């Protein structure tokens, strides 16, 4: 086995953030008072990790603004579900509207932040998150294309690499695209990466990792601005 591969293997065995920690990290990106849509997967965990001192208004594409926590057993009303069919609650000041108005909000630039899962993010901020090439069945788009086209800030939460060790941050997406040049920030189990006009910038890095190590698991060049601070979760 060549030295390089041995090194890669060792890298793959180093501890990374958990899915919950990725969510916790992304929660720190939400400003007080923001209107926010959370997609399926890791983003859906974010609501559990909001700093206590801020209020965020969660939007659901089925026509809810001001979604609260999930309903407790016995509290469920199946006319009040989120985009994943899960019964939820409301916070005071919530509102309902139809699905066209819900996506007027997503597409029209009214959401301050949207957080989606991702299969690949390119150097330019292209997102692929709806279809795995060769997967069986019809696939489905849902609200992801409208949301990613319209949010003022789009954060993608995902593992840094696939189960096979392939980078998910890439030069050009090879998976079917969701939206061109839409991603602002990628939060992974290894790093926080900003998409900037000058390219990808490594903003924060997982404890115990070096920028060089993260670069080796990344399919596009990562710029750094001085020393890259280590991720500190509260």
């Amino acid at each position, binding site marked *: 086995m060549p030295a390089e591969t041995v090194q890669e293997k060792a890298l793959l065995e180093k501890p990374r953030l958990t899915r919950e920690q990725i969510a916790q990290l992304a929660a720190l990106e939400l400003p007080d008072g923001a209107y926010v849509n959370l997609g399926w997967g890791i983003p859906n965990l974010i609501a559990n990790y909001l700093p206590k001192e801020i209020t965020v208004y969660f939007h659901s594409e089925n026509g809810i603004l001001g979604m609260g926590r999930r309903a407790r057993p016995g509290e469920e009303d*199946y006319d009040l*579900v989120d985009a994943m069919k899960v019964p939820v609650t409301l916070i005071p000041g919530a509102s309902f509207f139809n*699905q*066209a108005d819900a996506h007027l909000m997503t597409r029209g630039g009214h959401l301050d932040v949207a957080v989606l899962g991702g299969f690949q993010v390119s150097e330019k901020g292209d997102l692929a998150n709806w279809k795995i090439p060769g997967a069986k069945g019809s696939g*489905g788009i*849902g*609200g992801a294309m*409208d949301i990613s086209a319209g949010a003022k800030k789009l954060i993608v939460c995902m593992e840094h690499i696939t189960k096979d060790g392939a980078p998910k941050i890439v030069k050009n997406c090879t998976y079917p695209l969701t939206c061109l040049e839409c991603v602002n920030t990628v939060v992974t189990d290894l790093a926080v990466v900003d998409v900037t006009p000058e390219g990808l910038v490594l903003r924060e890095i997982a404890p115990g990792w070096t920028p060089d190590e993260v670069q080796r698991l990344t399919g596009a060049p990562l710029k750094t601005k001085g020393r890259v601070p280590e991720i500190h979760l509260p």
Partner: protein
Amino acid sequence: MKKKVYSSLDEAVAVVPDGARIMFGGFGGAGFPNNLIQALVRKGVKNITAISNNCGTRDGELGLMFKNNQIKHVIASFPGPHANHFQERFAAKEVTLDLVPQGILCERMRAAAAGLQGFYTTVGVGTEVAEGKEERVLEGKRCILEMPIHADFAFIKAHKADGLGNLTYRLAARNFNPIMAMAAKTTIAEVEELVPVGSIEPEQVMTPAIFVHRIVQAKGLHYAG
């Protein structure tokens, strides 16, 4: 004056012919016209084009219609992980699918409702969705032309209706229903409660009566699937 209220589900859907284009409301298990769908299953209509966010949840929602091979073409945004009957038909090429981003699905129906002939959007540019569509730059942005989606019927679910057809919806069971009610030539609503004309506050009507043509009260099967 022609009455809009029908006394049975079967009577309410009797007008639907084979080959009809039908919009079906509902999202995430809420606001589906499950009772009307069951009546369509009983009626046995064939070759339906269904316009719906998803494609059923096992036997529920549109599930049985796929199981019975009543639907030949679907325009949908997210067929769904539990749409097994649809997926089987799709794999067997017995049903064709036009995948549309969810908000664009809403807007294309609204364009039909509003008498617009098409619109440009950035959504889908550079993706599979853009294939075969006109692309141009407007306002400095790449965008594609999307066309209205018309339908013969909308099957919707509401909470309350008065005899004229004014509707209200409960909570997030509103979703696609008001848009579809506006977009189709004939809108058939199943409702939980029939209330006297004048008992819905004019400011609180969610779908004005002009968009509703047939109403039937239906209990049970609230959350099928």
